[in-house]
């Protein structure tokens, strides 16, 4: 259950950015969360509901974009998406050691006023 501390970090970052932009309210927080980040979106939402009250993000919507794991297959010279998070190329079945996407835990954007 480290989602609480991850969400706390995301919220602090969001509020800092909102403050810097001269905003008084945050209406939407958009996050990008990778399949291999080890973070569960449902738990983030739960944490957000617990943390947002009393801050300028109270009542804001939390939008979480899921980023699937993508690896580079050197044999086929192309990227492949892995829905099971395993590094095996679906075409040639070789194993890839090069993760291209999927570990993201990112504050993408904010809607503020």
């Amino acid at each position: 259950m480290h989602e609480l501390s991850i969400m706390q970090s995301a919220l602090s970052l969001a509020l800092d950015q909102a403050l810097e932009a001269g905003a008084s309210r945050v209406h939407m927080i958009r996050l990008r969360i990778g399949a291999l980040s080890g973070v569960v979106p449902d738990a983030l939402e739960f944490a957000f509901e617990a943390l947002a009250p009393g801050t300028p993000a109270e009542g804001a919507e939390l939008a979480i974009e899921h980023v699937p794991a993508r690896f580079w297959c050197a044999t086929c010279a192309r990227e492949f998406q892995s829905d099971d998070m395993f590094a095996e190329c679906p075409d040639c079945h070789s194993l890839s050691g090069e993760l291209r996407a999927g570990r993201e835990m990112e504050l993408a954007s904010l809607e503020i006023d």
Partner: protein
Amino acid sequence: MCKDCGCGLPGENPVGVSAHHHIGAHEHGDEHAHEHEHEHGPGHHHGHDHSQLHTHPHSHAHSHEEPDQEHAPAAGEETHRTIEVRRAILDKNDRLAERNRGFFRARGLLVLNFLSSPGSGKTTFIRESVRGLGPDFKTGVIVGDLATDNDAQRLRESGAPVVQITTGTVCHLEAEMVSRALKRLDLTGLNLLIIENVGNLVCPASYDLGEDLRVVLLSVAEGEDKPLKYPPMFQSANVVVISKMDLAQACDYNRETALANIRRVAPKARIFETSAKTGQGLDEWRSFLLQEQQARKALDPLSIY
């Protein structure tokens, strides 16, 4: 609810965002009387009326003797703006981890972050590894646990200086905890720092501590499919240590399946099959550490050792 304007924000704002600068939406002059709630009549435009998009929990308890031009923009007008941020949520931890990394490099320290489920044998493996390291290495250990310093005491049997981090309820170590612990560890002459993370196969994967190598342990008693169940952790491993090989037979451990599963998730990780009890695989592991240490020493012009 805010005592000044009733807007649902607390009077004291924890992050310092002023709750009372609603960007032209409803700036109040000092002469406003804040006495009663009222229905807004026709012709009264208010910046907080765009309720189709979101609902504000606040009401507006002020009288409006001032002309309406203060209350721009008009009802229904969208005042939201989008700002692109694109920053890592753990940006702060990542930056502190990079600071740690720079500090470690400058001191010529090879730093290992040990991760596994509770009970995989991290403490015993580290203790036995350190005992046999010989004169090439001077080792220090930082160990994290929710409570007790039992592991620190066991690790001290190896002869290495040990600092305990007691995390309380926190299920992982963060870069900042490590940098604080470093102040309690005499680093003079050390060239290997081992960090034993909190026993947990999920959360610590997200937190860079500034280590050179991430070492994930898997004991033969845990089941060959564990890497498939916890891909984020195993995918992040530079080294996978299979521990408690002396129990393989008793646990019906299937070596081929276990190795195939690790490679499926972490194809690049170096794998060591070990037993801290019998010493199996420990020489190979120690030779690997020596190679890593020498490779870093040769590459790093900042190193003072």
